[in-house]
């Protein structure tokens, strides 16, 4: 919206005196319109990001740079938030952990729907790390479904529960149509609850359309988490935000030389793995001739 421009000193056909007595009607109407529109309270401008929607409350993410770019100033509750990750371990959970700690402080519960079991050695959220981050393990429920269909069912059931704080789910990639329908259903259910709903999916789903209100694409370079907002309510974000999710001192650290393999591992490993009956054999050299055997001080103290 352009502001009121300065009236030129010389208007062809009109003099300043004429303007003072009778201003140009078109120009005056423009300026009046601009002033009137500015005074409207509920006018939405395309460049605006913060529009006050009193029905949706937002929880701060814990990262100021991200809060500034999210509509509402934080994670929106009651809406589906989709996180697209190429590889696990870039910092996707570290991004969510401050908001989950806030939920734990409000004594609300959270439900984790883990990826379906495939090989048997699936990664598990590590309780000491969760407890360190401030998440209340007593109010957290973990679900490990067997197939993808059970994942969706468990997410639906969790969204129907009352007084829930957050739901975090890992969704496998299926057909684009099926995924869209499933996400739409989750979006509708999320609208009825006041919980934070996070769904983590693979990066390959980025080009497919999704009904989620907020879509983030996560990547990592040089120890910084790069968050690109694929979709949000407002103007699109052009360049990704860099967030420091992991400790800062890891960012530029390098360890070039490894400590050498400890020497005691050669002699010390044996008593740890063998049966205790083998331990006394290390003492037997004391009875045999000392010249036939060389043993170091370490081997005496290894058992």
């Amino acid at each position, binding site marked *: 919206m352009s502001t009121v421009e300065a009236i030129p000193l010389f208007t062809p056909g009109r003099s300043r005196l004429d303007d003072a007595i009778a201003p140009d009607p078109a120009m005056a109407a423009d300026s009046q319109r601009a002033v009137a529109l500015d005074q409207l309270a509920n006018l939405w401008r395309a460049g605006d990001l913060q529009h006050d929607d009193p029905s949706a409350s937002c929880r701060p993410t814990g990262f100021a740079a991200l809060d500034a770019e999210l509509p509402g100033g934080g994670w929106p509750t009651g809406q589906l938030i989709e996180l697209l990750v190429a590889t696990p371990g870039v910092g996707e959970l*570290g991004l969510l952990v401050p908001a989950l700690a806030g939920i734990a402080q409000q004594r609300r*519960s959270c*439900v984790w729907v883990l990826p379906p079991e495939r090989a048997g050695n699936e990664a598990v959220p*590590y309780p000491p790390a969760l407890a360190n981050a401030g998440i209340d393990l007593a109010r957290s429920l973990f679900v490990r479904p067997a197939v993808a269909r059970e994942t969706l069912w*468990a997410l639906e059931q969790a969204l129907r529960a009352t007084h829930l704080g957050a739901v975090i789910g890992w969704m496998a990639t299926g057909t684009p149509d099926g995924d869209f329908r499933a996400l739409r259903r989750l979006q509708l259910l999320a609208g009825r609850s006041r919980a934070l709903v996070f769904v983590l999916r693979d990066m390959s789903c980025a080009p497919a359309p999704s009904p989620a209100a907020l879509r983030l694409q996560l990547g990592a370079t040089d120890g910084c988490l790069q968050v690109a907002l694929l979709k949000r309510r407002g103007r699109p974000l052009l360049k990704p935000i860099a967030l420091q999710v992991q400790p800062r001192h890891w960012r530029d650290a390098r360890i070039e030389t490894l400590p050498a*393999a400890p020497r005691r591992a050669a002699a010390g490993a044996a008593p740890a793995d063998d049966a205790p009956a083998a331990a006394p054999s290390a003492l037997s050299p004391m009875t045999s001739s000392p010249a036939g055997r060389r043993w170091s001080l370490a081997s005496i103290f290894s058992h």
Partner: protein
Amino acid sequence: MLWLAICLPALPLQLAERALVRAGPLVIVEGPPQRPVVTCCNPQASAAGIEPGQKLAAAQALAGHLLALERDPARERAALHELCCWAYQFSPHIAPFGDEQSSGVILETGASRRLFGGHDALHRRIARELHRLGYRASFGYAATPRAAQLIGLARLRGRDEQADAPDASSLKAALAPLPLAWLGWEAGTVATLQSLGLEKVGDVLRLPRDAFARRFGTLLLDELDRALGRQADPQPPFTPPERFEAGLELPADLADAAQLLQPARSLLRALQGFLRGRGAGATELLFQAHHSPRRAVPAPPTPIVLKLAAPERSAERFAALLGERLARVRLPQPATALALRVERLLPFAPAHPSLLPPSADDPSPAPATGWLQLAETLHARLGSERVFQLLAVDDHRPEYAYRSAPIAIDADEATTRGEASPAAAQRPLLLLPVPQPLPGDAAAPRYRGRLTLVAGPERIESGWWDLGDARRRSVHRDYFVARNPPGQTLWIYRDLAAPHGWYLHGFFA
């Protein structure tokens, strides 16, 4: 005192009809196996001309596809007992009755009227719940039990204009028009009275008492006095059993476990009535699906156990959980009968609703019911090994520093479990239960690219006391934080034992 008599017409027929779905002529037979005699017949059979008292052979000649079931007095007694347990939620004074005329249950509702919102509300409620259980019945209200029975019997026999007798003064007027045959006296006595010209109860009541007593005995006179309220009529007290047992025969052999939900609902409603009467809740329900005993190799009954975290007594909640549970059940053979047993009753306290409306972001403790019900639903469908809580355990070895535990009922009480010491260093948010060996040589481990070490080493050596234990091992490791070209941050370690291999243990997600 106001007594209600619930009269069930032709109880054997009703029990058979609960179990059958086909509509055809049906008779109940009784008597020696050489000469079975029809005792009850349903409307289709009556339309074909069958009457009680006929021989079975004659009945089969009259109707083509006749289904004849044997009468089972033990089942009828069990059904009446279940009905008494169900009725215990309305009143503590219950007694079953059963004679040739009708069978049913009498209960004293005068004291319960106020609790249930008045006489009409209580009557509607009893009628509705009895209908949901699957029974047809007539009701009679009177000031004495025997009079209530007779009034109910009158309504059963089609006398819709029969009036109730709520107070003692109206008893005589209510009972007067009833025929003598319905009193259940000996046939000879009734015949004598009829030959004297006395047809109705009112006629007998007008006779002089001492002459009647001399002629027919004091027992009959006492019975009439008890019916009219002139003498006390104490009923034997009913003590509800300590455990609940109920059974239902299925209409057709059900091969799909999910179809068991519908018959299970009527069993659950009976259980709900029983639990309401006892003021208790149940946490463990044992369903058993019985299979046909006529097979060559009869299969044992299939158990279906429903476990809840907190005591519950609502039939809808049980049915919802059972529906989820049945999705996982496979029947080896088609089921012919379903039985429900509840062994333990636990004290039940329904949640108190708050007077104040809940505010949006309430910092006060959240009600645990929603979360608990979610846990129970997930548990019923997915099984106990897939729904769990994680607790931190005080151990330096990372793979043993946590354990999964079943759901804690009370979240506040669970915070005292699982003490954990705060880790000095950063720990990854995702851990692999079994460390994965990394390819690459000792100097340059690789995981989707060459790894660069970023932090470490952290030496963890612990668990020497687990020597010789196959499942738990002692740990001698140097832990590092590494980064790889795709951008993942990994928690890897080098084993200090003889093969100094590199292993991946976690992701700093």
